[in-house]
């Protein structure tokens, strides 16, 4: 199935959850926040949140700024 991840369409296996998508991309969860369809998904929800076709996922983190 396809989802939009940080603005880009990507292919994902059916049944992938947030924890998996973060891990698959080699991301460390520290300081990382995930939104699905504009809803913030808390860390505790990552395992249970299964992504659906056409979901828009944002993986956000802190960067340098003034």
């Amino acid at each position, binding site marked *: 199935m396809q989802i939009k991840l940080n603005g880009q369409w990507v292919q994902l296996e059916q049944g992938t959850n947030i924890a998996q998508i973060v891990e698959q991309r080699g991301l460390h969860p520290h300081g990382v926040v995930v939104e699905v369809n504009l809803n913030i998904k808390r860390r505790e929800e990552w395992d249970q949140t299964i992504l659906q076709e056409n979901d828009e996922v944002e993986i956000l983190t802190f960067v340098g*700024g003034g």
Partner: protein
Amino acid sequence: MEHNDAKTAIKAEDWFELGGHKLTNRLFLGTGKFPNKQVIPKVIAAAQNQVITVALRRIDLSATDENVLNYIPKTNILLPNTSGARTAQEAVRIARIAREAGCGNWVKIEVISDNKYLLPDNYETIKATEILAKEGFVVLPYMSPDLMAAKAMVEAGAAAVMPLGSPIGTNRGIKTKELIRILIDEIPLPIIVDAGIGKPSEAAEAMEMGAAAVLVNTAIATAQDPVGMAEAFYLAVKAGRQAYLSGTAATWEFAQASSPLTGFLSEV
């Protein structure tokens, strides 16, 4: 306070409370525009700042770019900004995301839809302040120094007010001096001058006026020696604050002789 010994006067506890924290260092540091991340911990060591700003962005999925948090000591208070937000709603969204990262509940509201001067939208900032203060954030709104807007931010529950000295990144100094002076006199919250401070002397100038703190980013990050410049700013903020506490002398229109009149020289 005794001022006989300058060293003890500076070391004597001068602090202000913000968001439940006791701040003894009045220099807040920004983390944008540094040549690399490795220099950031050295800059923090030189600036001795307790508060540090960061921005929130999409994680770079293609790069193995290390998280900026890895370069900031855990003892620093993180102040995420809502840069990118053009409306109150966008600022609120960013703030909630930032808080979810689990690094605290402080937020610098930055709502800008002017791309030329990056001047903040006071009206949207007031709206965001009200929403986020109600949700328990420690809100520090970045604003254009206007007394009525600052009063509204106080009413809305801001923890401090952050007026700009001159536009972001311009290093033009405290061009808004007279308006900031009014805020310092009239607003019962810490006034933290943010944006446009280009030199340590300008940071000292803000502190001499009675600002509670200053936020500096570009002037340090883009200096030839950011670490050296961070130390210079650290000293300037201390000097400016010390001057304020010591009561700066009055200014006069005409000369006021410093030495007594001579009596022994004959008149011609």
